[in-house]
């Protein structure tokens, strides 16, 4: 797959530390120290109480598939060599949800199946966190 063709991600002040952590293989979730709300995507203000006392905490990287689909029709030409691939909403064991690519034999991907995080280079800049169902990862290494 021509990974260099995939879209670049433009980060900002809210998300820079999140992506830097992912480059180190650490998926984080966000927790508000004022109200204890937790959520997946980084922002410097709590979406519950509007406090700015936010901390990134390590995520176990495990959860279950809440929903998924298989992309058979590429949204842009950049993804045409990648199809078919699975995207799902993962309900993390910490309780919040994250959208991610799901790795594994496509026919085995089902709602409620357990998944765990894997890091794979998806373009020149970022290592996207993906979630893998329990299968022989080595056999699929070229697909990640």
């Amino acid at each position: 797959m021509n990974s260099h063709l995939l879209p670049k991600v433009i980060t900002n002040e809210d998300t820079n530390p999140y992506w830097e952590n992912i480059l180190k293989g650490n998926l984080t979730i966000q927790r508000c120290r004022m109200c204890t709300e937790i959520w997946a995507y980084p922002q410097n203000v709590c979406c519950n109480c509007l406090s700015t006392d936010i901390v990134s905490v390590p995520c176990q990287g495990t959860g279950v598939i809440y929903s998924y689909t298989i992309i058979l029709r590429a949204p842009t030409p950049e993804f045409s060599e990648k199809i078919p691939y699975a995207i799902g909403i993962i309900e993390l064991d910490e309780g919040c949800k994250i959208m991610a690519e799901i790795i594994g034999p496509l026919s085995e991907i089902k709602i409620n199946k357990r998944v765990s995080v894997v890091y794979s280079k998806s373009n020149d800049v970022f290592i996207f966190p993906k979630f893998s169902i329990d299968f022989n990862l080595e056999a699929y290494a070229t697909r990640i």
Partner: protein
Amino acid sequence: MRKKSRVAICGVGETNIGKFPGVSSLQNHAIASKLALEDAGISKTDIDGVLTVGSLVENWPHHSGAVSEYLGIKPKYTNTITQGGAGCCTMIQNAEMLINEGVCETVLCIGADNQLSGMTRELAIEAFAKNRHPQFEYPLGLSTPAAYALIAQRHSHEYGTSRETLSKIAVMSRNHAILNPKAQLRDPLTLNEAINSKEIAPPLHLTDCCISSDGGGAIIVTSLERARDLKQFPIQLMGSGNGFSHEHICYSTNLLTNGVIQSGQTAFAQANLTPQDIDIALLYDCFTISVILQLEDYGFCEKGSADEFISNGRIELGGQLPINTHGGLLAYGNPGLSGGIFHIIEAVNQLRNACNNRQVIGAKVALVSGIGGIMSYASTIILGS
């Protein structure tokens, strides 16, 4: 509790629907507007408010201004509603707010584009994909159908919604489009063909996805008093409401809870009506699953029971609650952000008893909806004759 609405639709106009190379987005706005002015029997100097929903093809930074300039209108108020597919219904709601507050007397609401010839179906799909979150959705390769598929898959998991359920919506839309000489897709579609059409993002297939068109529509809203003195029988705005849940579907805490409930409750309360009072519903159908969700969330049936509700022809012409009698975004036409304008115009034509062989006999009250983003914005209007 909102004040009683005192406005009415006094004129509607629609371009032809299909593929018309050489006609710009702004020209489509102008053609529809001229027809609406003629329908209302008023002149453009009577217009003192102009609302639009934008264009995907022509990227005007201040869209309603570009449209007003092209039409040679200098309104007291002009603005563009940026709620995606919910925008058309919200234009009517905003017109009511402007008229009830005395800001404007007569508001022109326009939704038009040349999406099919101006950017091709492929470029339109790409443009909508780039509306997804730039860091957490788009780089994953999430297409717009895939985003709706995530909702459909979860709905299927919780309530057993099947390919057959979704396909029934596609077939109903096509059957209605076949009766409409203006509709873009008029080839017969069987349930089996729909169930087995090309997979796009399971459980959504090709026949679950809206089409792409050139064209547009315009609607003129004025005070009920003024509308009574004009050419057409006034179609009253009885209630309207908006609802919002998330900008990006990756932030949704529950894929099946969205703004439709809030939007509907607000509109029904203002109109002092219930779902049982609705004679015809024009439901925003960017994908078949959105119609299923709305049937449940407006309270036409219980959550999870849409499959049973839509069987036995209940939502077809002649049924208890005919839906999308023009053919909807799935078969009639869809110039992108503005496709919802046709749902409103169809409701007006039904309430004027002007729909010929697809007329819903005795239709007095219509509900029209708009959905923007990925079930992000929900807008409802209730119209009565």
